């Protein structure tokens, strides 16, 4: 019964109807963005040479990729890295969410925005900051602890699997925190209250009701964290490669960085990673569908019941403070401190004299920095805009148009979620090497890659707000004499604005910090900030890197702030 007037055979207007044109164009764009690169990737992995005159089928690439002596160790490293990070991130995120959402820990509401702050610290900078802190040679924490306790050797070594797990985890915590907070929020407190009324005490209620109800959500959060870690490349690049600890993503990168680049082997590895992550996503969608029967997420926001921790609430408070100071604040502080140093040195009274603005002065005339800055700003704002406009239209078609086959668009828009960043890079290289459209090596190929990868995020934001628009709001416009376009412009789009703004900001942030796709596609002219950081860090210019990092964070905050201001107040009172 929910439909919008779609004048399919309007006698009055013989012009081409936008309501029919839009879905076809949308499907075309999505196929071009999501399906074509994957097709080229699979083709390329079975090809004897890159961009051949004729297709020669071979399994040699798979043999090279999977029958080598380190196949096994790569596989094991990947599993430990992803599994360990998922568990650690989940534990941190859940504890934070539980303490802030469901207990009477002092000042807990203050920690809600604080827990999300690491989101603005790009993964590359997160890794660099923790190298500054935990490097066995010069890491501040190690130096202090050795000094304090008179230790002979460094207590921590970031260049190890546990180190990688730690660094990656603390960067991912905001994600787990947000997902678990949502789960806690949407839990009907009467389910717990009725357990209490049945005679269960606090602990029994927590164990037998709260935990059981959360189990499906917890399972899917763990799964998504596992897949995301498997796909990530920041920590494996900056910490794993120097430590000679290789995972899937670094193997793909190394195959590409050989001379000459082994696209075939890289492609074969990428196909493997793609299958793994697709399997994970498939499990995830299945798990969340299963989870529906538990009805913990009803879409309704409840006023959750608070557990009284008694004197233990001070332990909770201590945990939050320690987390805030050592996990959230310290990486920012160390970057900020290092950016004023001529060379890396521990904070001390003597080091204070060496502080200067030299690094910033140097950057002000350093052309590659300004180019990368320009590219990053253009790319993140353009990606966010293109992705949100595209997904708003697609979401409208999928949920409102009632056209036959609209679900196909939904599926197409979901595909990119299975594509790891580095696999997307690999696929696009194979695509544009085969079809020499002159965009390879420009920022436009990056734009295509970013938009494709972040379409699923845009879809989530857009479809969420589309579904909230009661179809009678659009029908009322039609009944008031507004055509399809007038209705979309004057009613649908304005009502979409909150979702649009939220989605835009999120995509802008993730594009700005994007690394794993850019590392294969951004070269020379098209270099972005995250890649500039990576190369300069490899060259050892660590304090200039810190200065770039500081400017990067400031820029990101400014861009988001300006957009937020421009779009006015986000909330619409309903």
């Amino acid at each position, binding site marked *: *019964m929910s*439909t*919008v*007037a779609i*004048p*399919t*055979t*309007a*006698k*009055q207007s013989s012009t081409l109807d936008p309501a029919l044109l839009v879905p076809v164009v949308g499907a075309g764009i999505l196929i071009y963005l999501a399906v074509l690169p994957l097709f080229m990737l699979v083709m390329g992995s079975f090809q004897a040479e890159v961009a051949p005159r004729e297709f020669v089928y071979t399994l040699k690439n798979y043999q090279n990729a999977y029958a080598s002596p380190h196949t096994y160790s790569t596989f094991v490293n990947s599993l430990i890295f992803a599994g360990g990070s998922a568990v650690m991130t989940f534990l941190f995120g859940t504890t934070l969410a539980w303490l802030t959402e469901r207990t009477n820990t002092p000042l807990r509401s203050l920690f809600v925005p604080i827990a999300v702050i690491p989101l603005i610290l790009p993964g590359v900078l997160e890794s660099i900051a923790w190298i500054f802190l935990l490097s066995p040679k010069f890491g501040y924490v190690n130096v202090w602890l050795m000094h304090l306790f008179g230790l002979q050797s460094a207590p921590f070594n970031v260049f190890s699997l546990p180190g990688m797990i730690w660094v990656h985890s603390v960067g991912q915590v905001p994600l787990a925190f947000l997902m678990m907070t949502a789960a806690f929020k949407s839990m009907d407190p009467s389910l717990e209250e009725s357990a209490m009324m049945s005679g269960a005490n606090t602990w029994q209620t927590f164990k037998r009701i709260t935990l059981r109800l959360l189990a499906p959500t917890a399972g899917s959060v763990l799964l998504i964290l596992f897949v995301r870690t498997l796909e990530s490349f920041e920590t494996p690049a900056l910490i794993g490669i120097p430590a000679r600890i290789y995972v899937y993503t670094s193997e793909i990168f190394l195959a590409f960085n050989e001379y000459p680049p082994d696209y075939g082997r890289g492609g074969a590895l990428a196909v493997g990673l793609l299958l793994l992550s697709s399997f994970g996503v498939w499990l995830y969608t299945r798990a969340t569908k299963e989870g529906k029967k538990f009805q913990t997420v009803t879409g309704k926001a409840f006023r959750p019941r608070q557990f009284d921790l008694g004197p233990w609430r001070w332990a909770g408070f201590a945990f939050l403070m320690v987390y805030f100071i050592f996990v959230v604040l310290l990486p920012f502080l160390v970057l900020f401190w290092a950016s004023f140093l001529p060379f890396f040195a521990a904070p001390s009274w003597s080091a204070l004299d060496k502080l200067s603005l030299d690094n910033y002065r140097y950057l002000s005339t350093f052309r590659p920095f300004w180019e990368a800055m320009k590219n990053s700003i253009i790319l993140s704002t353009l990606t966010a805009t293109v992705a949100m406009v595209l997904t708003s239209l697609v979401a409208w078609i999928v949920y409102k148009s009632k056209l036959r086959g609209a679900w196909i668009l939904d599926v197409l828009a979901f595909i990119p979620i299975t594509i790891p960043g580095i696999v997307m890079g690999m696929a696009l290289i194979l695509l544009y090497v085969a079809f020499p459209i002159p965009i390879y090596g420009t920022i436009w190929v990056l734009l295509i890659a970013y938009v494709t990868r972040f379409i699923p995020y845009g879809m989530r934001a857009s479809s969420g707000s589309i579904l909230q628009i*009661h179809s*009678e*709001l659009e*029908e*009322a*416009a*039609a*009944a*008031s*004499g*507004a*055509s399809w376009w*007038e*209705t979309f412009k*004057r*009613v649908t789009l*304005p*009502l979409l*604005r909150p979702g649009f703004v939220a989605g835009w900001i999120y995509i802008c942030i993730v594009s700005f910090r994007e690394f794993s796709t850019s590392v294969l596609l951004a070269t020379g002219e098209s270099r972005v900030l995250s890649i500039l950081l990576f190369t300069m860090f490899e060259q050892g210019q660590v304090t200039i890197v810190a200065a770039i990092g500081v400017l990067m964070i400031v820029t990101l905050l400014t861009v988001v702030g300006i957009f937020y201001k421009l779009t006015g107040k986000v909330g*619409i*009172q*309903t």
Partner: protein
Amino acid sequence: MIEVKGLVKIYDDGSNAGVKAVDEISFTVEEGRFYTLLGPSGCGKTTTLRCIAGLEKANGGEIIVAGQKVYSANENTYVPAYRRPIGMVFQSYAIWPHLTVFENVAFPLRVGKEKVSNTEVKKKVTTALEQVELGGYEDRMATQLSGGQQQRLALARALVREPKVLLLDEPLSNLDAKLRERMRFELRELQRRLRITTLYVTHDQIEALSMSNVIAVMNSGVIAQEGGPRDVYLAPKSKFVANFIGSTNQLPGQVISVGSDAMGRVRTEDGEIACAILEGLKPGSNVVVVVRPESLNVHLQKPANSANVLDAKIGAAMFLGEYLDCTVELGHNVLQTHQRHTLEIRRGDPVWVELPPAECMALPA
């Protein structure tokens, strides 16, 4: 004026034939009248309204609104909703939350085919808002209005471009009981004053009876009976209509005789009843005799010289303030009746029930 001829609407349910939501219905709403489609949910009344609005494309038949053929299956005519001369009020009111009260009402003027000057817009919006007693609320956000005010805002928006036809889709169902009663009255007064042709959809018999000039009772995609409020209430032509409008007692039986004045006699398990016989029924036909609860008279002494008096016993009796709601048990049937609260009775009291013949009606079983 609205003319609907042989309208068919089929919903795709995966099967080949689909589901016929509206099955070849025809009716005419005369100029300036208040016409109501009344029926249970799923009877096709809202679908019919949406086909007339153009929000739904029919699969057969013809729709003429104010002399303009807006839909015709044979001529392949389909005028989109936004080109039809209609104003519509939705069940959810569909007030746009991002616009002010003024802008909500001004919307139809701003998007219309012909340009309306700003001063003209202001004049028309003000008039429309005053019509529904919302003058002075222009600058409020629409969402700051109460339910009843939103309802009137929706009405002002539907009326502002002076449509030929007003369509109302269960507009009162989201209001609380008291407010619904008042809005029923206001809506009726407004319609009578503007003399605008109105098509109203509801499942609420009170709304239908109190506001309409003509009611069409719908059931599974067809019109079961069309007529004035008195006709459909007092002279239902089928068991469905009798049951759906108001509460009804039913006594199954068989026609014994039919007189020339459409009165006759029916044999029931609890005795013979004199009653009106629906045209076409013959002696021997299986029927139900329907009689309204308020038509029955309960006597503590056996009345003399009255027809259709049956022996009975009081079942349950509930005091509802305005009246006494009680059940009386005949030998085989139980009747529900409304009596004055001055009647003093208890469960089990022997009584006599009188069924006035003119208010009893035999309908096909």
